[in-house]
């Protein structure tokens, strides 16, 4: 056999090696017990004696060379394998991402409610937190001697005799109606203030959402329709609702709206005070005296107004049992929303 032609064949075979398995196959082909080298060694005795020495040396050299080549190849393969291991990805490792912040639960509820009314055609309006006595009380048909005007129920400002911190969002009704003509469809979210001692269900600052719709021919039945649509949007289709007569100076007839307790489904639990019902908002047909104060003719225009406490709705929806959590701003609280 021509050892030189064998050399080219070896080169071709070596180039084909890509894995430990092909390496072993090629190794066996040359160095195995029945491999080419064994075959060549076995052919030596059949050679003329003077050629045996030279041929034997050449075969031996070839064998050593092959051993070296295979070793080299094996090293290369191992190195390649190591690179692959380094790139190996475990999808169980933590994902890599920028951490997002959180919107406050009060803002979430305000946005949710405003969006519902937005879709119904209401626009969102805001008003100042420091208000006049007129807008907060007089314009809303709250008589001068009404207890809500007491220093027990309203924060007044030092050095500004006619100013106070609004105790509800209703003064925005007066503001909006004084500056715009009907039809009006408005919701007003915002902070309100009352001098309450702080406990798990009372704070001196909280949020309300006020809404009102004024036009010709707005009826009590419309109030029921809109508020039912609203409550089902917020609390789900399967709630029951009831409209109870109530009293507010700025609406007549007035109503309080209850939904079946979302915790116990109306069976009675600690959240609903065993009543099976949760009061969620107050509402009514805007009082003719309010219209007179803003210069609307109550013979032409009618309308309804409603108001609700945002914290209460957030507490019900999220199952929060202490109102103080909203303003402590503990990240362990905020990050849950």
């Amino acid at each position, binding site marked *: 056999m021509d050892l030189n032609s064998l050399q080219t064949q070896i080169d071709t075979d070596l180039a084909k090696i890509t894995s430990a398995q092909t390496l072993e196959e090629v190794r066996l082909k040359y160095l195995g017990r029945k491999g080419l080298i064994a075959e060549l060694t076995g052919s030596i005795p059949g050679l003329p004696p003077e050629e045996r020495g030279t041929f034997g040396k050449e075969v031996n050299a070839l064998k050593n060379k092959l051993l070296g080549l295979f070793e080299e190849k094996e090293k290369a393969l191992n190195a390649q394998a190591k690179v692959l291991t380094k790139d190996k990805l475990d999808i169980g490792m933590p994902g*890599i991402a*920028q951490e*997002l*912040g*959180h*919107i*406050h639960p009060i*803002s979430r509820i305000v946005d949710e409610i405003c969006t519902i009314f937005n879709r*119904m*055609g209401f*626009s*969102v309006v*805001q008003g100042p*937190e*420091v208000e006049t006595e007129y807008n907060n009380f007089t314009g809303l048909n709250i008589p001068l*001697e009404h*207890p809500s005007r007491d*220093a*027990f129920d309203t*924060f*007044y*400002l*030092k*050095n*500004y005799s006619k*100013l106070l*911190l609004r105790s509800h969002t209703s003064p925005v009704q007066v503001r909006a109606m004084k500056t715009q003509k009907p*039809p009006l*469809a408005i919701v007003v979210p915002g902070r309100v*203030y009352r001098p309450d*001692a702080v406990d798990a269900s009372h704070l*001196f*600052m909280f949020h309300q959402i006020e809404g009102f719709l004024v*036009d010709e*021919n707005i*009826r*009590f*039945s*419309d109030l*029921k*329709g809109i508020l*039912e649509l609203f409550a089902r949007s917020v609390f789900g289709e399967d709630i029951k609702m*009831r*409209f*109870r*007569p*109530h*009293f507010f100076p700025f609406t*007549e*007839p*007035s109503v*309080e709206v209850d939904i079946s307790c979302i915790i116990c489904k109306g069976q009675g639990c600690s959240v609903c005070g065993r009543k099976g019902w949760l009061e969620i908002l107050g509402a009514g047909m805007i*009082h003719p005296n309010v219209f007179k104060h803003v210069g609307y003719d109550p013979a032409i225009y*009618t309308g309804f107004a409603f108001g609700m406490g945002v914290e209460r709705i957030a507490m019900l929806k999220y199952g929060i049992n202490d109102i103080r959590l909203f*303003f402590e*701003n*503990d*990240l362990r609280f*905020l*990050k849950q929303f």
Partner: protein
Amino acid sequence: MKVTYNWLKNFVDLKISPKELAEKLTMAGLEVVGLEKAGDDFVLEVEITSNRPDWLSVLGIAREVSALTGLKLKTTGFKEPKIKPKDFSPIKISVASKQDCPFYSARIMSGLAVGPSPEWLKNRLEALGCRTVNNIVDITNYCLFELGQPLHAFDLDKLPQKEIRVRRAKPEEKIITIDGQTRLLNPEILVIADTHHPIAIAGIMGGRETEVTFKTRNILLESAVFNPVLVRRAKQKLGLQSESAYRFERGVDLEGARQASRAAQELILKLASGKACGSKSLGATKAITPAINLEIAYLNKLLGTAISGPKAKQILSRLGLAVKTKSRNILTVKVPSFRQDLRLPVDLVEEVARIYGYEQIPQTLPAVKPGRKAPDDRDLIAVMKNILCGLGLSEAITYSLIDRHLLKQSGINIDTGLVEIANPLSREQEILRPGLLPSLTRALAYNLDQQQEKVCIFEIACAFSGQPAAVAEKPLLGIALCGVNTFFTKHGLAKDEITLLHLKGILETLFVRLGIKDFDFAGQPDNKINIMINQKPAGFLLKLAPQILGAFDIKNRQVVLAQVNLERLLKEVNLARKFLDIPKYPAITRDISFLINEDVSVKELLGAIQAKGAPLLNQAKIVDYYRGKQIPLGFRGLTVSCLYRQDNRTLTEDEVSPVHNSICSLLTERFGIKLR
């Protein structure tokens, strides 16, 4: 207000169960918040709205039950006992102000046997949680609960002058009330006095001196009407609540006062024998009540119903109103004295709706006429909040009212323009805050105290400042950051302490996303750094000084804060976008790495490069910086990447090289850089 089922049965032949009754009352506006069995009776606890003092009696609620059930209301007439003139023992009554006391009456009864009440009477009172005393006092309480008119009995023999004066208390005057407390009075408080001193606080509580006891034989029974506001104020001033005050402050029925007095007398003579010796009264006996015309068309238009005239008439009549049919469409309603809340036709609409049942009124959807709606501030604020959340900040909401101490703690000294609360309940409600940062710092410190490694919060709310005649409300964005950003990279966890540059980066990203092009940050890191938008101040950022960190008990941390004037920011927001062609021709980028003295302002440096490279230089920006080993003290390593591009052709190396070289020389000559 409590009422019992059996007591109501005295007035209405109830056939429904207490539970059904509670349900009916609730749905008519008398919310029943408690229903409990008491012996063979049931006690209903009813929440009464402030407009309905007439409901503060069994009779008032019975009237409602009658209207709701259609059952007849049984009222017993009280007959005036015949008095022989010689029996009358004269008594003198004077009322200082008709405004304070529109009506006052006194009945004299003598020869009474004062003793314990019979069981039925005790049971009734005790079911309502009222303490029983003796038959006379118990009867006055019984009439209070049944008819809603508070009465008071004086021991006549303790009034030697036989004179009653209804007047304001004199300064420093005192009285010992029947609860044994000495009460200091003042001229804002109305009292019942004899010729010398007060014997009762009008409408609130009697005096101990003239109290009816088992020894009493002769009494003066008072039935009066007092000014509701006076009673409420006095009650608050004295911190004294009573069943009597509860009714007077809401307003009692002027015409009912007489009736109650007669009823009480009848019961006293029956249970304590004795005899009536006549009565005397001062003031109005008839209440002024309006006649209201109710149009049936108006009623149905307002409610969205189709209630007939006769149906409306039936409902109103059952409520005890005198209704006449004026025409097919109009009812004329004469309001009785016990319904002072009814003034306008709309009040009658509510009465009809209540009894008809709110549940019976259909549900309709109005045609809302939507107005023109451009995105308003609230929409923009929602966008801002989302950007900030995307940058890892969480929204906080803190109180607008704060204590003065918090300002001091934050190193803020404001003497003028602080808006103070006149009637705070506690120190935490002293002032309306002039800015957001003290509250945010406190929230941040609280979270650090709760072992948070990183606190990144913002708030959007108003700050307040006092002007000569008004209070200015300014919406602000406040940001507070502290801690270490930790994030995974391919190579493991990386940590990065939050600094002013992080805060700057957040604001830059916010501004850019809001379409604000011209903004700048000017100032030294040791002081306030001003935020300029379109060359006008729009807020500031700062790093909290060590002494303030100390005041908040924050250790080994840096806290950075920003406050942005939201009005200014919102004014500059531009969410409109204009498409610019994507560059058609390739750019050539050349980086320059160099060492530069730390005192050189990077802003100035980049400005100089821009100026020098124009017009071929499209952009120059910092792509790397380094400080540490290999860099001599007082220097920093910077790499500036220069991007050369023209919109109308491909630039060649030959064009760019001279410009780039001139930039390098400029940097060397003017800024003393050392190329690396």
